[in-house]
Every structure is written in structure tokens, then in C-alpha cells.
């Protein structure tokens, strides 16, 4: 049992990828480290438990990644999804650092696998963890234990008490009992606030009742709010987040990867009134996966319905909930509690607008489109006419929020006056908004967590040991 009376060199708040990268790096640099995870051991690891890969720059093929994915292409991808809402210097630094994390990760026991299936075609850009994020966390926790890092589960940071720009003490609850602990340096790696529905409601109103939180219910943003309340600089739009289209039948929390649906590009998607509202075939799904959550969040009652026919059904990943199935579009609409006449009209209008003649290719932008609709479908548009018909109800699934504490490239947390806090660092989702203003690139959250976790651990240990 760790001695909670001692003053640790480094205290890490959080128990996910970013927290462990910081804790292990600090310990390897010689610091004594206490890691506080608010979840019980079985649910340790925050959202990292649900992750699968990390987006990594590489100039040549290596053991896990094919071909090359160079800095400029990576940056272009990020620029496109964020619409310029990023920080080029910090983003490029992160991108460059991502190419150098493999040896360290492997030394910590993380194993990689060649990407096989169901991975949205990411074998070139993303390195896949064998067994997924929980297996990665298991490796990191084993390494942390071996290195002598003190780990407390069921232990939540309530307040990092900042005085004169430095954290002087940390109030925690240890298995429900309040305590105060001390550390020379502190790393905040405890995620966004998406599981705090009341805080989310401030920005989204009652729409949050229709949101699904894909990840851990323990990311309630307590430390984020505590820091912002004490004069730490904020960055990021509080409504921006990683939000995808999920099966509406998903559990409110912790449904992870399996509740996502890949049917959209091969479907007609309508809102609760039976109207189409966005180009389903705008781009390949990996590039559009992360905008559909927000699109659905902006529809009435935050719900949409994906409708496809027997031709399209085998093209996407099996879903965890069975598709709603019917012999006609009207019957399907009734089963999904939509107005059948309206849905039939929408599908008929869509079918009539499909421009025939192109060969269908689900692996690239095939140019099969509609004409004269608002909006048109610009790729993979085929008539929906071959029964049986399949439907899925869709909800916005929130992965993590982007509202963040502002940091510099040393992972130091900045105060509102622009000065770095004396002994406070941040890594992971809690500072992701410094780079991700909006949009998302698959595997980039793990990249930010790993790169900034390593920096934060290094810097915190250096400062504590001086």
C-alpha cells in the first residue's frame, strides 16, 4: 500500500494512455510517481480501453505500417478535418514525434498486429495494438507496477490547489474518503468532460439526453473544470468533440467500438421526418465517420435512420444490434416508427435521381451519384430497390470533448496571463483541443496522448528532480 503521506516527485491524475505514458516516462527518468485512477481496476484506462490504434508518421514501411505516411500528408489530413482550427507548430511537432514512439511502446510491452479487417482501411497510417486498447493498457500497467509506480484505483482528484501559479496540494477521494496529497509536479491526464451530462447540457441543452457516450463514464471533467476555475487558460469550443454515428440502441455509456455503424455510405439516411439531410457518399467512410455524429446532433430529436437494400447490406461491418428488416420500404418505415408515405416518397425520389451507368466500387470514390436532389448523394448512389430492406436508427455517439486546458509544446499548462504554471503539466484528451479544434483523424487521440504523455512525464520529472 503506497504511503500517501510522502511528497511524490510526480503525481499523475488519470489512468489512461496519456497518464501511463507520463507516469512511466517520469519513473524512467528517476522520479517517484503516484498515479491516481478514478475508476475501479476493472474499468481502468479511461477511453483508451476502447481504442485500437495510433496514427503514426513514417517515411518508409516498418514492422507495423505499410508504405509511407510523411509529415506533410499527415499535416494536410489534419488541416482538412480541423478546417484550419489547429496549431500548426504544435501539430507538426506531435506528428514528427509520432514516428519515434514505437521502440518505447514495444519496450513497455505493447504489441502490434498487422491490420486485418474491419479497420476502415487504416493499415498505412495507423498502427494497431494487438488485442486493442485494453491490451495496451495492461502492458503499460504491468510495466508501471514493475517500475515501482504507486497506483491507486477508485481514487479521484477533486482539486489541484493552485497558488501563485503552482499546484501546492491535491485534494482527492481515496475509495470515497477525502484526503490531501502532495507532489512536486503534477500531470493532469484525466480526459474530457463528455460523461458529465449536466456540464454537456450547458452547451447542448436537452439534446444531451439523446447523446450516447461511447466511452468511460468516469471522464466527468472534474479536474478540467477545477483548473479552469482557478485561472488556467482554456482553449477550444465546448461543443466540439469527436462524435460519430452510432446505433441508437447502444448503452448510454461504455458501448465502445461495436455500436458504431458503417452503413451510411451505402444507404439513404433520413431524419425523423423522413427527409434526407446530407450527402451520404461525400467521401470514404473513414474520412466522414467523425462528422456524422455532429450532423445527427443537429437533426430534430438527434436521430436519423439509415436505410439500405439487400445489395448494400453485405458491404459494411456486421453491427452489434441486428438490423431492422422488412420486405418493403414502407414496412421498414413503420417498423422504425417513421411516416411510411414520407419515407417511400424520399426513397422513390432518390431512386429516380440515381444516374445510372457507372460501375459500382465500394473501395474508392466511384462517382455513382444522384442528380437534382438537395442534397445529392455524390458516390455509391445505387437504387434502393432489392428486398429485403434493412434499417438502423442512428444517434450521435460522443467519444471525447475538445474543451481543454491550454498548454505549450513542453506540455506545461498555461495560466490565463499566458505564463506557464510552475509545476503543472497536461497530456491527452484534457489538452487535445490545443491541436484538435474540430473534426477528427482516426487514431490521433492516442497519438496526442502518447506524445504529450511522454513529454509531460519527461518535463515533470526533470523539474521535480531539480
Amino acid at each position, binding site marked *: 500500500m503506497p504511503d500517501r503521506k510522502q511528497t511524490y516527485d510526480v503525481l499523475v491524475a488519470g489512468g489512461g494512455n496519456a497518464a501511463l505514458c507520463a507516469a512511466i516516462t517520469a519513473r524512467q527518468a528517476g522520479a517517484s510517481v503516484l498515479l491516481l485512477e478514478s475508476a475501479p481496476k476493472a474499468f481502468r484506462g479511461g477511453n483508451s480501453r476502447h481504442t485500437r490504434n495510433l496514427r503514426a508518421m513514417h517515411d518508409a514501411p516498418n514492422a507495423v505500417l505499410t508504405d509511407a505516411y510523411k509529415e506533410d500528408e499527415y499535416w494536410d489530413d489534419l488541416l482538412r478535418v480541423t478546417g484550419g482550427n489547429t496549431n500548426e507548430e504544435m501539430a507538426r511537432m506531435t506528428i514528427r514525434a509520432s514516428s519515434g514512439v514505437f521502440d518505447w511502446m514495444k519496450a513497455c510491452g505493447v504489441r502490434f498486429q498487422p491490420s486485418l479487417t*474491419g479497420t476502415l482501411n487504416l493499415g498505412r497510417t495507423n498502427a494497431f495494438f494487438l488485442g486493442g486498447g485494453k*491490451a495496451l493498457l495492461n502492458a503499460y500497467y504491468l510495466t508501471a507496477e514493475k517500475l515501482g509506480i504507486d497506483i491507486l484505483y477508485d481514487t479521484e482528484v477533486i482539486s489541484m490547489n493552485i497558488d501563485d501559479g503552482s499546484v501546492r496540494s491535491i485534494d482527492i477521494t481515496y475509495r470515497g474518503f477525502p484526503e490531501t496529497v502532495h507532489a512536486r509536479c503534477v500531470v493532469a491526464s484525466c480526459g474530457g468532460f463528455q460523461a458529465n451530462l449536466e456540464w454537456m447540457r450547458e452547451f447542448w441543452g436537452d439534446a444531451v439526453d439523446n447523446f450516447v457516450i461511447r466511452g468511460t463514464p468516469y471522464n466527468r471533467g472534474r479536474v478540467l473544470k477545477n483548473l479552469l476555475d482557478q485561472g488556467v487558460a482554456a482553449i477550444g469550443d465546448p461543443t466540439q468533440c469527436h462524435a460519430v454515428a452510432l446505433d441508437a440502441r447502444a448503452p448510454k455509456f461504455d458501448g465502445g467500438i461495436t455500436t458504431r455503424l458503417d452503413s451510411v455510405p451505402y444507404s439513404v439516411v433520413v431524419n425523423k421526418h423522413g427527409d434526407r439531410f446530407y450527402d451520404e457518399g461525400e467521401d470514404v467512410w473513414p474520412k466522414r465517420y467523425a462528422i456524422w455524429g455532429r450532423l445527427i446532433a443537429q437533426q430534430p430529436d438527434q436521430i436519423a435512420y439509415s436505410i439500405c437494400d439487400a445489395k448494400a447490406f453485405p458491404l459494411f461491418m456486421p453491427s452489434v444490434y441486428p438490423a431492422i428488416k422488412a420486405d418493403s420500404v414502407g414496412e421498414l418505415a413503420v417498423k422504425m416508427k417513421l411516416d411510411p408515405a414520407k419515407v417511400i416518397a424520399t426513397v422513390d425520389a432518390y431512386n429516380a435521381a440515381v444516374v445510372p451507368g457507372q460501375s459500382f466500387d465500394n473501395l474508392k470514390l466511384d462517382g455513382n451519384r444522384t442528380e437534382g436532389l438537395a442534397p445529392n448523394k455524390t458516390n455509391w448512389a445505387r437504387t434502393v430497390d432489392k428486398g429485403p430492406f434493412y434499417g438502423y436508427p442512428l444517434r450521435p455517439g460522443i467519444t471525447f470533448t475538445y474543451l481543454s486546458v491550454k498548454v505549450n509544446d513542453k506540455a506545461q499548462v498555461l495560466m490565463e496571463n499566458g505564463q506557464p504554471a510552475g509545476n503543472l503539466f497536461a497530456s491527452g484528451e484534457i489538452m487535445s483541443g490545443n491541436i484538435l479544434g474540430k473534426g477528427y483523424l482516426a487514431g490521433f487521440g492516442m497519438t496526442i496522448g502518447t506524445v504529450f504523455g511522454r513529454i509531460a512525464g519527461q518535463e515533470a520529472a526533470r523539474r521535480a528532480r531539480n
Partner: protein
Amino acid sequence: MQETEAVLNARREMEICNACRYCEGFCAVFPAVELRRDFSAGDLSYLANLCHGCRGCYYACQYAPPHEWGINVPRTLAEVRAESYVAYAWPQPLAKAFERNGVVVAVVVALSIALMLLIAMAISSPGQFFAARPMVADAFYTVVPLWAMQLVGIGTFGFSLFALWKGACNFWADAGAKQSITIAAIGIAAWDAVTLKNLGGGGDGCNDNSEAFSKRRRHLHHAMAGGFMLCFAATTVGFIYHSFLGWAAPYAFISLPVLLGTVGGVLLTIGTVGLFAMKLVEDPMPVARKLLGGDVAMLVLLAATAVTGLFLLAVRATGAMGIAMAIHLGFILALFMLLPYSKMVHGVYRSAALLRRAIERDMKPLGGE
């Protein structure tokens, strides 16, 4: 296979796994799952027997208990596996042996030893049974005559082989591949079975009792299976020596049958005792409790067969030879009889499952890109 509760639960879990696919790098089960959207009871039996119980997926699972979905693939598939042993057993009335398998194994062993002791004593005169015998040709057969050994041995072993074959046919009809069997597929399956590739966990082995990986289980199983095969080879060589070359047992310590048997017996002992010890400290979560009795009983039976064989070798020139021989033969008799009605069937069904996997190796996963 019937639509039982275990099958329904396995289907629920496989459908979740199929939407997740994070574990596809661990073993053959998950790539096999990805080939289909619908899982018949036979498919689930196939997957259950394809699972080698390495537990990698349990510790890596984001949905493992206490998550509300409670995904526990190693346990769930073990439960289906247990039911598949009952479903495919031949003749069906004897399938009941799987219900309390630990007890059944123990009782059969006890009765076999008693039978062998009775035969040995009935044949020997009371004074002779405990007398030291000169290690000359046919010395063993003064305890149990050769004809009796051959009759009982070949009879029970032959019946068991036939029953295993019938079981394999039942498995294949219900859970086998639809395509035809090829030589290449047989080769791949045999290699995977012998190397226990699927206890590799993607490279670092199995999870014995925590999220840490080890190759202990794989190595101990190799020792056990290798030892078993060496002992079988010893018996076969002995049979050839006797029947075709006219060289009667007992053989010298440095003769081929004795060397094979000795090395095999030692390996078998190491493997079984090691696997038994692992069971004492294993994490109970990813394990099916109802299989434990039968698993442990078979490990003890194999260990006892090996140890009594080595003991017989040690005491064969003394007065203890008669009783040591009778007890050793009792264990072997029990082993022969129990082949189709014990944990031993896993070798047949798992090999058949590996064969189906090898046949289906070029099929493309559904969905994804």
C-alpha cells in the same frame, strides 16, 4: 448441437466480437468469426472447439465483466465445448459419462485397477505374486498372460478408437466444413495441432492467471502430449519386437522401447503435474467450472499412468513387480476405455476444428474493407 442456453450466449458474444474484431490477432477463432454474420449451433460448436483456451481475449476485452455485456469468450466457448462432447459422443447412452466426468474417471480407474489385481492374483499362486522374478523373457506374462493383455488391450483400445471416429464423424456432420477436405488443409491443420500455434496468443503465449503472458501452458502441453506419444511409440515398438521380431519383453534399460517409454514417462509426468499446478493458481474467471473435474481427473490419470510405468521399471526385478505391473496395467486399461468419454476427446474435435479452419483459410472476412 441443440439450441441450449450456452449456445445462445455464445451466439450473443460472437455477434459482439464480430462487430469489434480487436482480438483477431490472437488466434484462429476470431478470423473464423469474421467469415460469417449468422452463427448456427454447429458453427458455434466449431468455434468452441477451435478455441484453445489461451485467455488472451478475456484480458484484452473492453466488454469483459463487470461490463454489462459480460463478454467472457474463453468461458463461454468452454461451456459450449463441454456440451459438444456430450452431443457427439458415441454411442449416445455413454455420453452421460461427461456429466460428472471427474467421478466417472475416478470410478473407472478404481475398477480397472481392481480388475487387473484380481486377474493377476487369480493367475499367480499366492506365494508367487510377491516373489521376485528373474528378468528373463516373458517374465511379465507370468503376472498377466500375454493373451489376456492383448485381448483386453486391443479390445478396449480398438473400441475406443472406433468410438472416437464416430464422434469425429458426428462433429463433422454438425460443425465441419461444407467444402471438401484437401491434402493441403490436412497438412496445415496437423501442423497447427502439433505446434499448438493457437496457444501462441499472437506471439507471447497465454494468460495463465493475470494479464501477463507466458508460454508455460504451451510448453507443458508439449511435454505432456510429446510424452504421451513417446509412451505410445514405446508400446508400439515393443509390440513389433515381440510379434514380428520374436524378441520377448522385458527389454534392457538401453533398448529402444524402454528408452522411449522412460523419456516419455518423465515428460508426461512433468507436463501433467505442471498443468495441474497451473490449475491450482489460475484465475477462475475465464474458466468453465463444470469442466474442472474432468480436466483434473484426466491429468491425474495421465500422471498416474506415467509414474506407475516408471515405478514398474524401477522395481521390475523385485518382489514388488507383480503388484506394480497390475496397477500400471489398471491405469492403462482405464485410459484406453476412457479415451472417448473424457477430456481426451478434445484432441479429436480440436483437430477437426483446425481442419475446418484450414479449409476455410482463403475465405474473405465479411464487411470491413
